[in-house]
């Protein structure tokens, strides 16, 4: 069919015409093959500008349109719509970027004009090969998967469930609650973390629309926006959740005690245990690594089982609910959802790698999380601030930026440490007023509602703020008053002196870092990661919770370090994004997808493994690859890789790109 191309060159006021001789370019365009009309206009994106195009499509029967103006990232949708309105398939349109890529970056008018011509000729040659494409719509499954049971996941799950849509909440630990459940108070308002979190945890546990799957992990995700298939491994708990009443007798009976994860190794738990006083679900779990019976079974021996049998001669019965089931195995569950909210959180930076801070060498150098547990009424010391050897510290130092803002570890600022350090200082001043508290900081970053005021409050409460990063912590005393102390050495940069501060306890305000398994998570959910290792959002400003995989959202600290308010806000945002899609009921999927020409497919399967979206399946009978267009994102990796050239990347066909290359070189 004959090509009838219309070309429109935009002045963009003087943004383009200031550097590019627009008339010359228009003249040049007129001379190009298959071009039936070429015009220039002050503002092509304006209504009159768009109308020019619409009218010409009708009058001159245009079947291809080129607009040379700004970046397609700016106005491609605008002009596509214009074409659509005039009855021309939107994919029969092409744009030449002569502003961002030309008039704005070059000064020499002649050279800029020449380049503009090249770009226009490229667009014309390209559009010649454009084909009409149809965008498809698929229905949306109204169920939502939330991965991670911290405050982010809890919030997202509740918001979706409250709108009476099914939510599957998957948590790898035996209880939900995440890091927030370990905290004592929360800054800057100082309400107790448990007091504001546990009600939410309970309502998750009881919500008719939430199916809670703790001690479970997502192993595989296939499908596409609106229609994901998810494989989940429910790890063997060795407890019948239906029967367990959470009475806790089993953990009293269990003879094996090990360091408690929840108390960051400061307290102990048993091999059979309920993770925390306010665990949800409030059910026991058996640690197969530690349980002597399970380890015995592996060796064919039947030992212990005190939790089950109790101690008869003492007349202490075992589990009365008969909930303990050593025969349990992992089970695989498959669910279908339309949207996925990833809220896998962070992990605390391990400060032992910073040798000079002595974490792991000095008992009284502890991490922030450990302090949260020490200060927490439900913690190993019942909320009393005590050193490792049970003394009441006479002075405490808090070190900022441990693992953050450091090229040797993490370049980024973890954003919450200044604030939680202030919180620690407050708790310390409150619980041991006689003990001086020192905070060694580089910069105080207190941006947030009520944050600076909190800083001011702590200044009033008498905290010693020293502007300098600690160089090292030593126990080698140089003066009598340093004997038996930890000495923090830093420069007080405001008086330009090196100072040695003897203290009894040092709290390291550690960085928030991506979880060790972030890479695996990224692979399962087809997420990208930023240079700092956190998950990449679709747009840092305008689309902060969506990702490049439609229907998959990232919220909370897996996306970047942030405080609780921001986390909750993101969770709500993601929930409403999911709900929006659910209420619309269908989603449009990319039309510029790849398609296999089965005639030419050699069945080498190279493309199958290459596809980052698992969009390509292999038809074992016909021995050809097949692409699920709803899943394909049109990246074209398979197109370039196909040795027999059997795959076509729609709207980025080899033909089209070759033509464009020729074009830019005229």
């Amino acid at each position, binding site marked *: 069919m004959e090509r009838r191309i219309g070309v429109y060159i935009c002045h963009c006021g003087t943004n383009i015409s200031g550097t590019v001789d627009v008339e010359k370019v228009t003249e040049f365009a007129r001379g190009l093959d298959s071009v039936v009309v070429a015009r220039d206009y002050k503002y092509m994106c304006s209504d009159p500008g768009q109308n020019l195009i619409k009218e010409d499509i009708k009058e001159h029967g245009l079947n291809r349109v080129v607009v040379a103006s700004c970046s397609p990232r700016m106005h491609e949708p605008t002009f596509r719509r214009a074409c659509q309105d005039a009855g021309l398939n939107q994919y029969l349109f092409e744009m030449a970027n002569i502003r961002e890529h030309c008039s704005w970056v070059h000064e020499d008018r002649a050279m800029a004009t020449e380049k503009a011509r090249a770009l226009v000729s490229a667009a014309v040659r390209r559009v010649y090969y454009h084909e009409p494409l149809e965008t498809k719509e698929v229905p949306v499954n109204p169920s939502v998967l939330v991965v991670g049971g911290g405050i982010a996941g809890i919030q997202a799950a509740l918001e979706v469930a409250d709108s009476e849509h099914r939510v599957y909440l998957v948590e790898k630990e035996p209880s939900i609650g995440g890091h927030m459940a370990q905290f004592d108070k929360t800054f800057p308002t100082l309400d107790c973390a448990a007091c504001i979190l546990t009600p939410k945890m309970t309502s998750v546990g009881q919500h008719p629309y939430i199916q809670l799957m703790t001690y479970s992990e997502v192993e595989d995700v296939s499908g596409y926006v609106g229609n994901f298939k998810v494989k989940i491994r429910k790890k063997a708990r060795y407890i019948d959740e239906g029967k367990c009443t959470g009475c806790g007798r089993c953990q009293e009976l269990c003879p094996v005690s090990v360091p408690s994860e929840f108390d960051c190794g400061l307290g102990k738990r048993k091999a059979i245990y309920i993770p925390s006083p306010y665990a949800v679900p409030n059910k026991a779990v058996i640690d197969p690594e530690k349980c002597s019976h399970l380890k015995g079974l592996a060796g064919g021996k039947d030992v212990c089982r005190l939790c089950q049998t109790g101690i008869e001669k003492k007349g202490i019965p075992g589990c009365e609910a008969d909930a303990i089931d050593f025969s349990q195995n992992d089970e695989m569950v498959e669910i279908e959802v339309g949207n996925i909210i990833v809220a896998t959180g962070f992990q605390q930076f391990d400060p032992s790698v910073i040798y000079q801070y002595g974490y792991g060498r000095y008992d009284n150098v502890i991490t922030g999380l450990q302090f949260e547990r020490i200060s927490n009424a439900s913690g190993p010391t019942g909320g009393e601030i005590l050193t490792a050897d049970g003394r009441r510290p006479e002075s405490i130092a808090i070190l900022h930026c441990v693992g953050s*803002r450091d*090229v*040797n570890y993490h370049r980024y600022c973890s954003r919450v440490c200044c604030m939680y350090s202030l919180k620690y200082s407050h708790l310390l001043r409150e619980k041991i007023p006689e003990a001086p508290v020192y905070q060694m900081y*580089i910069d105080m970053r207190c941006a947030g509602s009520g944050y600076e005021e909190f800083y001011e409050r702590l200044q009033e409460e008498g905290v010693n703020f020293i502007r300098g990063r*600690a*160089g090292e912590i030593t126990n080698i005393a140089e003066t009598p008053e340093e004997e038996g102390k930890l000495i923090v*050495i830093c*420069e007080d940069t405001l008086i*330009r002196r*090196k100072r040695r501060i003897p203290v009894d306890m040092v709290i390291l305000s550690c960085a928030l870092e991506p979880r060790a398994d972030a890479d695996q998570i990224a692979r399962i959910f087809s997420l990208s990661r930023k240079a700092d290792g956190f998950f990449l959002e679709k747009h840092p400003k305008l689309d902060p919770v969506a990702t490049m995989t439609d229907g998959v959202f990232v919220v909370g600290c897996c996306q970047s370090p942030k405080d609780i308010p921001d986390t909750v806000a993101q969770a709500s945002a993601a929930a409403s994004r999911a709900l929006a899609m659910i209420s619309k009921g269908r989603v449009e999927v990319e039309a510029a997808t790849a398609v296999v020409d089965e005639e030419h497919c050699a069945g080498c399967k190279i493309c199958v493994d290459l596809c980052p979206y698992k969009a390509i399946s292999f038809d074992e009978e016909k021995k050809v690859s097949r692409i699920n267009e709803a899943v394909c994102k049109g990246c074209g990796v398979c197109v370039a890789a196909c040795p027999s050239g059997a795959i076509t990347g729609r709207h980025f066909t080899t033909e089209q790109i070759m033509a464009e290359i020729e074009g830019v070189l005229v």
Partner: protein
Amino acid sequence: MEKMIRTDAFVNEIAALPGGEGVRLCIQCGTCTASCPNADRMEHTPSQLIAMARAGMRDEVLSSDAMWYCLSCYLCTVRCPRGIKQTDLMHALESLAVREGLSHGRTLTPAMYRSFNDFVYSLGSLPEFGFMTWFHLLTNPLRAFRLVPVMLKLLKRGRLSIRARRLTPQGTRQLRAVLDRAESLGGAR
């Protein structure tokens, strides 16, 4: 208040020195100072030198004694959260100070370094104890005297080299040629 015309000239000069690249990145956290065994002896702390440099205080920085107390232990370098090569920067500042004739009087170190270099230049090799004695006699005969017992011990234990190791004549000639050319090419700035 001290009137100061803000100027980038000096910080640019330093940033152009090998080792000085990082000065603009410094966040003045003081880790270098805190890690420095000699910071207490310094007229200005290591981080302060950078702050002064960025304030354009050229003469104050170059006539400071701070860098002359640097032991080249490199603790500051491996700990700097911004990856600044503080130790190298100290050496660069020393070289600059020397070139400007601003090297500091309060410490003997510059003088010691110089005579060290004279030794190396003329011998191509350094009999350290011989050099020590010579240097002390030169600068502070009293200390030389105090060191006599030490020297006797060294002698008794066969550690005082009477005869310094020499390069072959052609080796010496070659070394001289190289060093002379190097000096004619100016410092590493």
